[in-house]
């Protein structure tokens, strides 16, 4: 009896393993392309190892989650694909679902062993291992998305989301009827808090009554928790919802099914999950800058720079508006986007008070850009704990 129980148990675990394998949306292995005939092993098409022309540069890119998550990883992978298309002589090798911290080291070492001389590490927790490897491999250039460390062969790049988040806040603040906005966040990280603050400041600039209710899932990609959190926010009366997790699909899909407005982040393709109640969204479109960085490595003109770029540089974009968004709200949102980009509106300009009413940024001062990643307080109007 025990062995039976044991077999059933292990069977279940195996099935769950298989299910996770297939859970990635449209995992290509699950459905082999029907057009391809089952080739003989000997007749297999030329392997990448046997490409006739030597690539001018081998670029490694690693992602923290699946490449087709309609979110952060898709946005990052999309910009890599754009680069590979722009510079055809580059050979791009990619790895998805790369684990955190020490786990990412193996992947990057393998990439270097495959000849990669430029590595894009795109997950938050890839920064430390990439930086450590950059000390060992002096001839390899590392670029991290959104980090802050710098050295001779280590730099970072990212979009500048605070301005777009301010515009998203303007849209949300104009659309809400209950004056309660929901924000599903993965972790209380410095950047996440900055996004929430910018969003809230934007919302309150058009609707001083607006509040942002923050709830964490403590995971970048736990779909069950994301759905639960979204539902409980909606049950509290929230009527516009947005998020900072890897894939916006669950939160947006759940909001849509409850008839609640949503605002997307990370990748513009999130709109497909909310045909009705989509307001707008912002996402990363870093293909141009990645192309530029890669070209500079090929031309041997690469220098370590702390690269941040916004909507007007083409690094971030605003998604089309949904069908229920009135023209005046659309105009207001686009105007806010333009004003922040032109510097007419500075998002973190004082006076800014925190939740307790204490002044955090005094009149006439501005929160410096390099401080935005380590903010540990919420502005007035946010409900939730920054810890």
């Amino acid at each position, binding site marked *: 009896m*025990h062995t039976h129980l*044991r*077999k059933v*148990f*292990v*069977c279940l*675990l*195996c099935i769950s*393993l*298989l299910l996770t*394998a*297939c859970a*990635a949306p449209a*995992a*290509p*292995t*699950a459905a*082999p*392309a029907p057009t*391809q005939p*089952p*080739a003989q*092993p000997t007749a*297999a*098409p030329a*392997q*990448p*190892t046997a490409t006739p022309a030597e690539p001018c540069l081998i670029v*490694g890119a690693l992602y923290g989650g*699946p490449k087709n998550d309609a979110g952060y990883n898709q946005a990052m992978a999309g910009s890599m694909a754009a680069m590979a298309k722009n510079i055809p002589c580059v050979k791009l*090798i*990619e*790895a*998805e*679902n*790369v*684990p*955190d*911290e*020490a*786990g990412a*080291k*193996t*992947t990057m*070492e*393998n990439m270097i062993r*495959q000849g990669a001389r430029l590595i894009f590490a795109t997950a*938050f*927790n890839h920064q*430390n291992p990439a930086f450590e490897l950059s000390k060992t491999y002096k001839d390899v250039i590392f670029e991290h998305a959104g980090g*802050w460390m710098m050295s001779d062969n280590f730099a970072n790049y990212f979009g500048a989301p605070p301005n777009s988040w301010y515009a998203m806040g303007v849209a949300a603040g104009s659309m809400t009827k209950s004056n309660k906005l929901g924000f599903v966040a993965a*972790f*209380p*990280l*410095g950047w996440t808090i900055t996004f929430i603050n910018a969003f809230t400041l934007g919302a309150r600039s058009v609707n001083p009554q607006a509040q942002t209710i923050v709830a964490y899932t*403590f995971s970048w990609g736990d779909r069950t928790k994301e759905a639960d959190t979204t539902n409980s926010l909606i049950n509290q009366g929230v009527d516009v919802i947005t998020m900072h997790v890897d894939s916006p699909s669950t939160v947006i899909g759940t909001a849509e099914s409850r008839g609640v407005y949503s605002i997307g982040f990370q990748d513009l393709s999130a709109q497909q999950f909310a045909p009705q109640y989509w307001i707008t969204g912002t996402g990363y479109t870093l293909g141009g800058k990645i192309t530029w960085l890669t070209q500079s490595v090929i031309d041997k003109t690469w220098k370590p720079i702390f690269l941040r770029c916004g909507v007007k540089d083409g690094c971030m974009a605003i998604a089309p508006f949904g069908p229920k968004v009135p023209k005046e709200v659309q105009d207001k949102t686009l105007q806010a986007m333009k004003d922040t980009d032109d510097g007419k509106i500075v998002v973190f300009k004082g006076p800014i008070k925190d939740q307790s009413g204490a002044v955090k940024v005094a009149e006439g001062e501005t929160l410096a850009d390099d401080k935005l*990643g*380590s903010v*540990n307080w919420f502005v007035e109007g946010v409900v939730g704990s920054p*810890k």
Partner: protein
Amino acid sequence: MTAAVDRTRRERRLNRRIADAALRYLLMLLLALGLFGVILLLSGKNPLHAYADILRATLGSTYGFSEVLVAMTPMLITAMAVALPSRVGLINVGVEGQLYMGACLATWGALTFIDLPAWALLPLMVLLGMIGGAAWAFVPGYLKAIGLVNETITSLLLNSVAPKVVSFFIFGFWHGPMDTNKTANFVSAARLPTFFGTRVDLSLIFALALLVLFWYVMRYSRWGLEMRAIGGNPQAALRNGIPLKAYQVGIMCLGGAIAGLAGMALVSGYFGLLLANFSSGIGYMGFLISWLSFGDPLGVLLVSFLVSVITTGGNLLQLTQGLPYAAINILLALALYIVLARPTFVRGAK
């Protein structure tokens, strides 16, 4: 004279058992690779190239082999944390949680006693890690012993609590100014020593020592005998005067302590810091490995080795063959299914 003959016979039998087991697992591996090869063919890849890549990346170089050992170490320890309680009929699904609590307490030690030298700090962290894991396992063990709740349920449910406790301490007290989801890097005295410039650290020795100790105790000691008696028939064991409840609580705690050791080894050796949600299911993998190998030390070693080769080598397939990550999970699941089915290639295999 007879004793010597006995011994050689026993040695020969043991050798044959090892050879049989190795052959059996090798054949199972080949079958799994054959099936996965079909999937590769269907998606237009050359399986021979893919397998050559896996072999080159794992067993073909010192670096690759060291990475396999690095991946295998926590699996070995967590599998022991399941195998031990299973001998007295306890199903410890809570390794994941016990691992987190062990890591949590060990981290507290590493962050508090930063001035201690390594020879004092590391044993202290080992001890703290084991206490953390044992304390977490005590709850299900005790509830089981007093006949209140089944340990399978409680230990499983506690798995989702432990990462929250870790997150509470990281986000509340231990995080750095920018990296808010992890602690600062440990001081070097709090890091397990590594060997030959690879990432293989002392915890591999812990794991192998545990494996041998487990095998020896189960086979040659009174405790082993009593535990087997409990596993066979708890009521009969009780009537024979074996302290059933004490064993249930004690063995569950010991299993938890081993899981806590795995947590300590991960933060002190592999990561060198404590990260929120660091484990990514190592505890569950240990559970799977232990049950697939029927808690047999040799089987645990072979299955963990197989799983590590697939995961380390499989990651490379993304780079060389452009396969998606999901492909590796499929290969792993196939391999585990076949180990589960245990086809009888060899006489005596069950």
